[in-house]
Protein backbone atom coordinates (compact mmCIF):
# COMPACT_ATOMS: atom_id res chain seq x y z
CA UNK A 1 0.00 0.00 0.00
CA UNK A 2 1.09 3.54 -0.69
CA UNK A 3 0.81 6.13 2.04
CA UNK A 4 1.17 9.83 1.46
CA UNK A 5 3.15 11.62 4.14
CA UNK A 6 2.70 15.24 5.14
CA UNK A 7 5.03 16.92 7.54
CA UNK A 8 4.95 19.99 9.71
CA UNK A 9 8.30 21.65 10.03
CA UNK A 10 7.48 23.82 13.04
CA UNK A 11 4.50 24.02 15.35
CA UNK A 12 1.74 26.18 13.94
CA UNK A 13 2.90 25.88 10.35
CA UNK A 14 0.78 24.18 7.70
CA UNK A 15 1.47 20.54 6.89
CA UNK A 16 3.09 20.09 3.53
CA UNK A 17 3.37 17.05 1.34
CA UNK A 18 6.70 15.36 2.05
CA UNK A 19 6.50 12.29 -0.16
CA UNK A 20 5.16 8.79 0.06
CA UNK A 21 6.11 5.44 1.57
CA UNK A 22 5.16 1.93 0.55
CA UNK A 23 4.16 -0.20 3.53
CA UNK A 24 2.28 -3.40 4.30
CA UNK A 25 -0.09 -1.75 6.78
CA UNK A 26 -0.56 1.28 9.06
CA UNK A 27 2.01 0.01 11.53
CA UNK A 28 4.74 -0.33 8.89
CA UNK A 29 3.75 3.03 7.42
CA UNK A 30 4.23 4.61 10.87
CA UNK A 31 7.75 3.16 11.26
CA UNK A 32 8.87 3.90 7.70
CA UNK A 33 7.48 7.44 7.72
CA UNK A 34 9.27 8.18 10.99
CA UNK A 35 12.46 6.86 9.47
CA UNK A 36 12.22 8.84 6.25
CA UNK A 37 10.65 12.10 7.37
CA UNK A 38 11.05 12.47 11.11
CA UNK A 39 14.24 11.11 12.56
CA UNK A 40 16.57 13.99 11.83
CA UNK A 41 14.58 16.60 13.67
CA UNK A 42 13.16 17.93 10.39
CA UNK A 43 9.52 17.57 11.46
CA UNK A 44 7.45 18.32 14.54
CA UNK A 45 4.55 16.17 13.34
CA UNK A 46 3.55 13.90 10.46
CA UNK A 47 0.25 13.07 8.82
CA UNK A 48 0.25 9.62 7.23
CA UNK A 49 -2.65 8.99 4.90
CA UNK A 50 -3.42 5.94 2.74
CA UNK A 51 -3.33 7.15 -0.84
CA UNK A 52 -6.73 5.54 -1.40
CA UNK A 53 -8.20 7.93 1.18
CA UNK A 54 -7.11 10.97 -0.79
CA UNK A 55 -9.85 12.39 -3.04
CA UNK A 56 -8.45 13.62 -6.30
CA UNK A 57 -9.95 16.06 -8.78
CA UNK A 58 -8.29 16.73 -12.10
CA UNK A 59 -10.93 18.32 -14.32
CA UNK A 60 -12.41 21.71 -13.77
CA UNK A 61 -15.24 22.13 -16.22
CA UNK A 62 -15.87 25.60 -17.61
CA UNK A 63 -18.65 24.86 -20.10
CA UNK A 64 -19.89 28.43 -20.49
CA UNK A 65 -16.38 29.85 -20.78
CA UNK A 66 -16.86 32.16 -17.85
CA UNK A 67 -13.26 33.21 -17.88
CA UNK A 68 -13.97 36.21 -15.68
CA UNK A 69 -14.00 33.71 -12.79
CA UNK A 70 -10.34 33.07 -13.33
CA UNK A 71 -7.39 35.22 -12.46
CA UNK A 72 -6.16 34.86 -16.01
CA UNK A 73 -9.62 35.74 -17.33
CA UNK A 74 -8.81 39.19 -18.61
CA UNK A 75 -6.00 39.43 -21.15
CA UNK A 76 -5.23 42.93 -19.91
CA UNK A 77 -2.11 43.31 -21.97
CA UNK A 78 -3.97 42.79 -25.22
CA UNK A 79 -6.68 45.19 -24.17
CA UNK A 80 -4.17 47.85 -23.19
CA UNK A 81 -2.46 47.49 -26.53
CA UNK A 82 -5.73 47.95 -28.37
CA UNK A 83 -6.63 50.97 -26.27
CA UNK A 84 -3.24 52.59 -26.92
CA UNK A 85 -3.54 52.00 -30.62
CA UNK A 86 -6.94 53.63 -30.61
CA UNK A 87 -5.61 56.58 -28.66
CA UNK A 88 -2.54 56.78 -30.87
CA UNK A 89 -0.05 56.61 -28.04
CA UNK A 90 2.88 54.22 -27.96
CA UNK A 91 3.58 51.90 -25.05
CA UNK A 92 5.78 53.54 -22.38
CA UNK A 93 9.46 52.71 -22.91
CA UNK A 94 10.63 49.65 -21.02
CA UNK A 95 7.23 48.05 -21.28
CA UNK A 96 7.43 45.11 -23.61
Amino acid at each position, binding site marked *: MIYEVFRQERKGQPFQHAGSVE*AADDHFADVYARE*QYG*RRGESTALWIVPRSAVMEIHEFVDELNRNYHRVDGYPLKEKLKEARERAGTAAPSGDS
Partner: protein
Amino acid sequence: MNEQEQQLLLEIADDELILGWRDSEWTGIAPLLEEDVAFSSIAQNEIGHARALYELVARERGITADELAFDRAPEDYLCAQIVELRLLDWAQTIARHYLYEEADAIRLERLKQSTDSEIAGLAAKIDREEAYHRMHAQMWHERLQDEPRYVSALNELRPLLEQRGEHTSELGQLLEEMTMVRRSQPSGTKW
Protein backbone atom coordinates in the same frame (compact mmCIF):
# COMPACT_ATOMS: atom_id res chain seq x y z
CA MET B 1 36.05 2.99 35.54
CA ASN B 2 37.04 -0.43 36.82
CA GLU B 3 38.08 -3.40 34.71
CA GLN B 4 34.68 -5.06 35.07
CA GLU B 5 32.89 -1.98 33.76
CA GLN B 6 35.30 -1.73 30.84
CA GLN B 7 34.66 -5.37 29.96
CA LEU B 8 30.91 -4.84 30.02
CA LEU B 9 31.14 -1.77 27.78
CA LEU B 10 33.40 -3.63 25.38
CA GLU B 11 30.99 -6.53 25.28
CA ILE B 12 28.17 -4.22 24.26
CA ALA B 13 30.36 -2.28 21.84
CA ASP B 14 31.52 -5.48 20.12
CA ASP B 15 27.93 -6.72 19.83
CA GLU B 16 26.84 -3.43 18.30
CA LEU B 17 29.77 -3.18 15.88
CA ILE B 18 29.46 -6.72 14.59
CA LEU B 19 25.67 -6.64 14.38
CA GLY B 20 25.82 -3.25 12.67
CA TRP B 21 28.14 -4.72 10.06
CA ARG B 22 25.96 -7.80 9.53
CA ASP B 23 22.78 -5.74 9.26
CA SER B 24 24.48 -3.45 6.76
CA GLU B 25 24.84 -6.44 4.46
CA TRP B 26 21.16 -5.87 3.64
CA THR B 27 21.79 -2.42 2.20
CA GLY B 28 20.58 -2.48 -1.38
CA ILE B 29 18.95 -5.91 -1.17
CA ALA B 30 16.28 -5.58 1.55
CA PRO B 31 12.74 -6.78 0.68
CA LEU B 32 11.53 -3.30 -0.21
CA LEU B 33 13.02 0.12 -0.60
CA GLU B 34 11.54 1.59 2.58
CA GLU B 35 12.88 -1.33 4.54
CA ASP B 36 16.26 -0.91 2.92
CA VAL B 37 16.43 2.67 4.19
CA ALA B 38 15.12 1.75 7.65
CA PHE B 39 17.35 -1.26 8.18
CA SER B 40 20.46 0.45 6.85
CA SER B 41 19.82 3.30 9.22
CA ILE B 42 19.49 0.87 12.13
CA ALA B 43 22.78 -0.74 11.11
CA GLN B 44 24.45 2.64 11.06
CA ASN B 45 23.04 3.52 14.48
CA GLU B 46 24.49 0.33 15.95
CA ILE B 47 27.94 1.18 14.64
CA GLY B 48 27.52 4.68 16.06
CA HIS B 49 26.71 3.21 19.47
CA ALA B 50 29.76 0.97 19.24
CA ARG B 51 31.92 3.99 18.47
CA ALA B 52 30.66 5.94 21.48
CA LEU B 53 31.22 2.97 23.80
CA TYR B 54 34.69 2.25 22.41
CA GLU B 55 35.61 5.88 22.98
CA LEU B 56 34.83 5.65 26.69
CA VAL B 57 36.94 2.53 27.11
CA ALA B 58 39.73 3.76 24.82
CA ARG B 59 40.14 6.91 26.90
CA GLU B 60 40.60 4.79 30.03
CA ARG B 61 43.26 2.74 28.26
CA GLY B 62 45.04 5.59 26.51
CA ILE B 63 44.37 4.26 23.01
CA THR B 64 41.91 5.12 20.23
CA ALA B 65 38.43 3.79 19.54
CA ASP B 66 39.63 2.56 16.13
CA GLU B 67 42.33 0.47 17.75
CA LEU B 68 39.72 -1.17 19.96
CA ALA B 69 37.31 -1.69 17.11
CA PHE B 70 39.70 -3.03 14.51
CA ASP B 71 43.09 -4.02 15.85
CA ARG B 72 42.31 -6.79 18.32
CA ALA B 73 42.70 -10.49 17.57
CA PRO B 74 39.39 -12.27 16.87
CA GLU B 75 39.64 -14.23 20.13
CA ASP B 76 39.78 -10.96 22.08
CA TYR B 77 36.35 -9.82 20.90
CA LEU B 78 33.60 -10.19 23.50
CA CYS B 79 30.55 -10.33 21.24
CA ALA B 80 27.90 -13.03 21.45
CA GLN B 81 27.71 -15.63 18.69
CA ILE B 82 24.29 -14.45 17.59
CA VAL B 83 25.68 -11.26 16.05
CA GLU B 84 28.49 -13.02 14.21
CA LEU B 85 26.49 -15.04 11.73
CA ARG B 86 26.04 -13.99 8.16
CA LEU B 87 22.30 -14.38 7.76
CA LEU B 88 21.17 -13.59 4.28
CA ASP B 89 17.67 -14.82 5.00
CA TRP B 90 15.12 -12.22 5.99
CA ALA B 91 13.19 -14.40 8.48
CA GLN B 92 16.44 -15.27 10.28
CA THR B 93 17.62 -11.67 10.18
CA ILE B 94 14.39 -10.43 11.75
CA ALA B 95 14.51 -13.22 14.33
CA ARG B 96 18.01 -12.12 15.34
CA HIS B 97 17.00 -8.46 15.30
CA TYR B 98 14.02 -9.17 17.56
CA LEU B 99 15.96 -11.38 20.01
CA TYR B 100 18.84 -8.94 20.15
CA GLU B 101 16.70 -5.87 20.76
CA GLU B 102 14.82 -7.62 23.57
CA ALA B 103 18.06 -8.61 25.29
CA ASP B 104 19.71 -5.26 24.60
CA ALA B 105 16.81 -3.38 26.21
CA ILE B 106 17.34 -5.22 29.51
CA ARG B 107 21.08 -4.59 29.39
CA LEU B 108 20.64 -0.89 28.61
CA GLU B 109 18.12 -0.48 31.40
CA ARG B 110 20.77 -1.74 33.85
CA LEU B 111 23.45 0.45 32.32
CA LYS B 112 21.25 3.52 32.75
CA GLN B 113 21.38 2.89 36.51
CA SER B 114 25.19 3.01 36.54
CA THR B 115 26.74 5.15 39.27
CA ASP B 116 29.17 6.45 36.65
CA SER B 117 27.22 9.39 35.26
CA GLU B 118 29.04 9.28 31.94
CA ILE B 119 28.09 5.63 31.39
CA ALA B 120 24.51 6.22 32.54
CA GLY B 121 24.23 9.26 30.26
CA LEU B 122 25.51 7.40 27.23
CA ALA B 123 23.20 4.46 27.95
CA ALA B 124 20.23 6.83 28.06
CA LYS B 125 21.28 8.41 24.78
CA ILE B 126 21.71 5.02 23.09
CA ASP B 127 18.39 3.84 24.49
CA ARG B 128 16.54 6.71 22.84
CA GLU B 129 17.68 5.44 19.43
CA GLU B 130 17.13 1.83 20.39
CA ALA B 131 13.48 2.66 21.10
CA TYR B 132 13.05 3.06 17.34
CA HIS B 133 14.87 -0.23 16.71
CA ARG B 134 12.54 -1.99 19.15
CA MET B 135 9.51 -0.51 17.45
CA HIS B 136 10.81 -1.76 14.12
CA ALA B 137 11.65 -5.23 15.51
CA GLN B 138 8.27 -5.51 17.22
CA MET B 139 6.41 -4.61 14.05
CA TRP B 140 8.18 -7.32 12.05
CA HIS B 141 7.81 -9.81 14.88
CA GLU B 142 4.05 -9.29 14.95
CA ARG B 143 3.86 -9.75 11.22
CA LEU B 144 5.98 -12.92 11.07
CA GLN B 145 5.17 -14.59 14.38
CA ASP B 146 2.95 -17.26 12.81
CA GLU B 147 5.36 -18.10 10.00
CA PRO B 148 6.98 -21.49 10.67
CA ARG B 149 10.30 -20.36 9.15
CA TYR B 150 10.41 -17.39 11.48
CA VAL B 151 9.47 -19.42 14.54
CA SER B 152 12.18 -22.00 13.90
CA ALA B 153 14.71 -19.20 13.31
CA LEU B 154 13.79 -17.76 16.73
CA ASN B 155 14.31 -21.14 18.36
CA GLU B 156 17.61 -21.77 16.62
CA LEU B 157 19.08 -18.37 17.34
CA ARG B 158 17.87 -17.78 20.89
CA PRO B 159 20.57 -19.94 22.60
CA LEU B 160 23.30 -18.02 20.71
CA LEU B 161 22.46 -14.85 22.66
CA GLU B 162 24.24 -16.33 25.68
CA GLN B 163 27.17 -17.81 23.77
CA ARG B 164 30.14 -15.63 24.58
CA GLY B 165 33.82 -16.38 24.89
CA GLU B 166 33.96 -18.86 22.05
CA HIS B 167 33.43 -17.59 18.57
CA THR B 168 32.05 -18.98 15.35
CA SER B 169 34.41 -19.22 12.38
CA GLU B 170 32.37 -16.46 10.78
CA LEU B 171 33.77 -13.82 13.14
CA GLY B 172 37.32 -14.31 11.90
CA GLN B 173 36.20 -14.00 8.28
CA LEU B 174 34.18 -10.92 9.09
CA LEU B 175 37.05 -9.18 10.90
CA GLU B 176 39.30 -10.00 7.96
CA GLU B 177 36.84 -8.27 5.65
CA MET B 178 36.21 -5.34 8.02
CA THR B 179 39.85 -4.48 8.48
CA MET B 180 41.03 -5.05 4.92
CA VAL B 181 41.26 -1.39 4.01
CA ARG B 182 42.69 -0.43 7.37
CA ARG B 183 45.47 -2.98 7.02
CA SER B 184 46.23 -2.19 3.39
CA GLN B 185 46.22 1.60 3.80
CA PRO B 186 47.57 2.39 7.25
CA SER B 187 48.36 5.96 6.23
CA GLY B 188 44.70 6.51 5.41
CA THR B 189 43.52 5.51 8.86
CA LYS B 190 45.90 7.57 10.99
CA TRP B 191 46.64 11.26 11.08
